[in-house]
């Protein structure tokens, strides 16, 4: 274990190392979608919306490089096949040729869209819930084309902080100053001047001029009175974009699983130690990613659905490590590696929708009770799912090796303990949610779907615990109930949004509904299968 302690120490040092490189073009602040973000994030999200990926790997260009090239050479940028259109109906409606590559340039699409302006206007007037998939995609494409054009002549790049007289807090783009002739104050003038210097340096490929211009840019930014951003925070975000902690963390979990499998086959001790080390590194990176996001946005760990996914899996990882610490037979690693990997995949699919650091509507903004409620209930989801995983293991174990009573009993005790912990977090989190509701809009409980979802988890756990105590349920039935409780958690977490009523329903799409039904079906088959299989096998002997 001494080796492990040392390893942990180095890992902590690695993750706490501050970003040390200088101020780069990627780091310059842009205001977009209501928040101030580094240019890197801006470029990545737009490239993601247009192209479907966050960089141009074929041309070996980062998102910021692509953006700079577009600004410096819009003529060629418009010829670049940057728009990824995968719906043949959209292509056909624009009278374009369908290719297997699905890639089109601005010059391909823009003239065709102009021809369809009447249709676009009619789609735009429809309420968004009445639009078909085709209409939604066509509208999105037309908005992307417009956005692309605005970027190419710097209109969409809100790079310049407002002067003192501007109360809305809205930033301005170079376009606003150059073409509409807005008056500038001295800070804004300095900023724009160094931006011009940088761009001309970049065009002439003079490394030295670019460096100097960036330095001037940074100084100009620093000199702004009452600025609402920290250059350090911007840099952190760029660094996080580059390093992508959650990808590395996923890698660690997968490695932990492979090595654990090897150690079960060959049984040397050092293999399982390496496996633990991988799991711990994955968890540390995972947690560090969450902390960085909190620092960047200055808000608690969970406020969007995406963040709840990352956070729940982090909680499961912590529980897995604790379980492994007490058991030391690989069960904790097994659960952690599998669930951690699955949740990272789900998280990535959510992240592909765009900026994962979005702004929040008023009622969800900055409130002590909300922060504690969401964090606690999310921990409750994590602990409940962990109990569900251990329940699956119990059922599996009683099928594989029904006569190893001590082992079965010990797994059951783990299951019961984790269920109590889960009950603590879900119960407390649900009540805290009520307290938040009481603080914010005056009622403790309103039978809103999300509240009911959380309540259902609490009730299911209360039910199983009391059934076990009163002898209605034996160990196997308890495990079955807690395994099926995973379905309740999934429904409370994602399913509530299917109903689209109440205050909690945030964005949702059909894909999630499908995945949810698949999950429920699979869980039903697995839990009942594991439970009934041994009972069906032994029955013929009795008769």
């Amino acid at each position: 274990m001494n080796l492990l302690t040392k390893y942990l120490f180095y890992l902590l040092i690695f993750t706490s190392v501050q970003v040390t490189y200088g101020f780069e073009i990627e780091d310059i602040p842009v205001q977009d979608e209501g928040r101030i973000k580094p240019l890197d994030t801006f470029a990545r999200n737009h490239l993601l919306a247009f192209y479907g990926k966050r960089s141009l790997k074929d041309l070996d260009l980062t998102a910021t490089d692509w953006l700079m090239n577009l600004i410096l050479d819009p003529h060629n940028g418009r010829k670049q096949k940057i728009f990824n259109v995968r719906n043949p109906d959209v292509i056909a409606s624009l009278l374009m040729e369908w290719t297997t590559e699905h890639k089109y340039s601005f010059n391909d699409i823009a003239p065709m869209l102009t021809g369809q302006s009447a249709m676009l206007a009619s789609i735009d007037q429809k309420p968004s819930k009445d639009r078909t998939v085709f209409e939604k995609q066509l509208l999105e494409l037309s908005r992307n084309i417009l956005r692309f054009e605005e970027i190419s002549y710097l209109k969409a790049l809100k790079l310049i902080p407002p002067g003192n007289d501007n109360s809305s807090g809205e930033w301005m783009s170079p376009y606003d100053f150059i073409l509409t002739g807005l008056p500038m104050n001295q800070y804004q003038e300095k900023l724009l001047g160094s931006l011009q210097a940088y761009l001309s340096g970049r065009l002439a490929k003079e490394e030295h001029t670019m460096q100097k211009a960036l330095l001037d840019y940074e100084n100009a930014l620093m000199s702004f009175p009452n600025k609402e951003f920290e250059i350090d925070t911007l840099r952190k975000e760029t660094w996080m974009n580059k390093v992508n902690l959650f990808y590395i963390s996923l890698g660690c979990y997968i490695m932990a699983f492979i090595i654990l499998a090897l150690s079960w086959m060959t049984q040397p001790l050092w293999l399982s130690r390496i496996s633990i080390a991988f799991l711990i590194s994955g968890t540390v990176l995972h947690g560090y990613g969450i902390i960085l996001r909190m620092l960047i946005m200055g808000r608690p760990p969970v406020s969007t659905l995406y963040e709840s996914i990352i956070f729940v899996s982090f909680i499961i990882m912590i529980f897995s490590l604790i379980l492994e610490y007490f058991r030391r037979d690989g069960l904790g690693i097994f659960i952690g590696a599998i669930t951690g990997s699955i949740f990272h995949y789900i998280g990535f699919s959510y992240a592909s929708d765009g900026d994962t650091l979005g702004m929040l509507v008023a009622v969800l903004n900055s409130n002590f009770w909300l922060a504690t409620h969401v964090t606690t209930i999310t921990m409750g989801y994590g602990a409940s799912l962990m109990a569900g995983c251990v329940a699956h293991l119990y059922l599996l174990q009683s099928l594989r090796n029904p006569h190893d009573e001590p082992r079965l009993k010990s797994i059951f005790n783990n299951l019961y303990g984790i269920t109590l912990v889960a009950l603590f977090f879900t119960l407390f989190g649900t009540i805290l949610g009520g307290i938040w509701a009481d603080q914010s809009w005056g009622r403790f409980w309103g039978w809103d779907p999300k509240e009911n979802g959380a309540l259902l988890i609490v009730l299911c756990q209360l039910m199983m615990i009391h059934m076990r105590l009163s002898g209605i349920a034996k160990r196997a039935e308890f495990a079955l109930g807690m395994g099926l409780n995973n379905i309740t958690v999934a429904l409370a977490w994602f399913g509530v949004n299917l109903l689209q009523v109440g205050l909690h329903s945030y964005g949702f799409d059909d894909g999630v509904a499908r995945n949810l039904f698949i999950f429920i079906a699979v869980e039903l088959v697995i839990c009942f299968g594991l439970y009934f299989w041994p009972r069906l096998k032994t029955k013929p002997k009795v008769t």
Partner: protein
Amino acid sequence: MIDIKQLIKFISSPKVFSYTVVWLIVIVFFGTIAQKDVGLYASQVKYFSSYYFLFAGFLPLPGGRITIIIMTVNLASSLFKKNLWKMKKLGIIIVHIGGLLLLIGGGITAKFSAEGNMVIGEGESSDHVDDYHDMELAFVNTSLEDSLEYTIFDAPLLGEGKRIKYDKLGIQIDIIDHIKNVRIESRISPADSIYKGFLNDFVIIPKQPDKENTQNRPGLIFKIEGTGKETDGIYGAFLGQRVPDTFEIGGELFFTEFRRKRTYLPFAIELLDFKKVMHPGTNVAKSFSSEVNLIENKIPRRVLIQMNEPLRHRGYTFYQASFVDGLDKETTVLATVKNYGRMFPYISSIIMSIGLLIHLLINLPKMLKKRSPSSK
């Protein structure tokens, strides 16, 4: 005679609790699903706030209230069990006391709390709260010298087919129809002479009620007798009616108003300014707030009510709930609540978490060990 011990043993059994929880799970699950079709309020009334409900139209099943009452009795009686009062069950005892408090608080809230909306335009003031759901009919006497005299008929009096005899004015009112949601249309052919007021030119037509009860525009059709030949007849009224019907009773001039049930407060609130702030460059609201004067005994006090920062005064709490964008001025909507049970969740959640923590601290290390001690 029934053995008291046996009875307590039965009603305090965790088996009873288990089965009530199962039933509660069923109600909560289906009540939540039903919200998609009938809306939150209707489903709440049918499943959660009811003593019983009819399944498939004929089979009465226990509703949320009965279930929770059984649960409360079960929980309370379980505290009288002798074998519970042991040191090692301390955590469990505390948790159950906390749970009992939570349920009792819920009961008090369900029974005694009142909620509604206060709607104030900029520069105006209000001293009453509008109920979310119940309506009332007001007869307003405008013939007095320096004041208006209101005669209010409450929601229970306004059911279809009800007859109100009001001797003070010497009139009799028959409620012909009370409709949840209406639209108003012009008459195509001339009306029968029995229709008076705006019903002379318009008709009230029932409309499919919206799932959100607050979106509905209720309407009332009623017949007045005893005022004299000219004014006796059938009248209509609906929520938000701009021009009210007027008529004479005993030489005094009245008009009717069909409005949300009002509760008057011992103070008034005047809206000075409503502000909303957006996230820069987006349509997403960052915050909204109302700057108000709280006027009591004619003395105003400045208060800022904003999201998550309500005004609490004399047992009432005012929350920034919504707003209406007008052409020249904005209107704020303050959700108003009077709740006697609001401290219960705070106290009980602290008690329950302490109890659970004690229980976990005593038992968890034992449960997480790989080999349980008893198997050695």
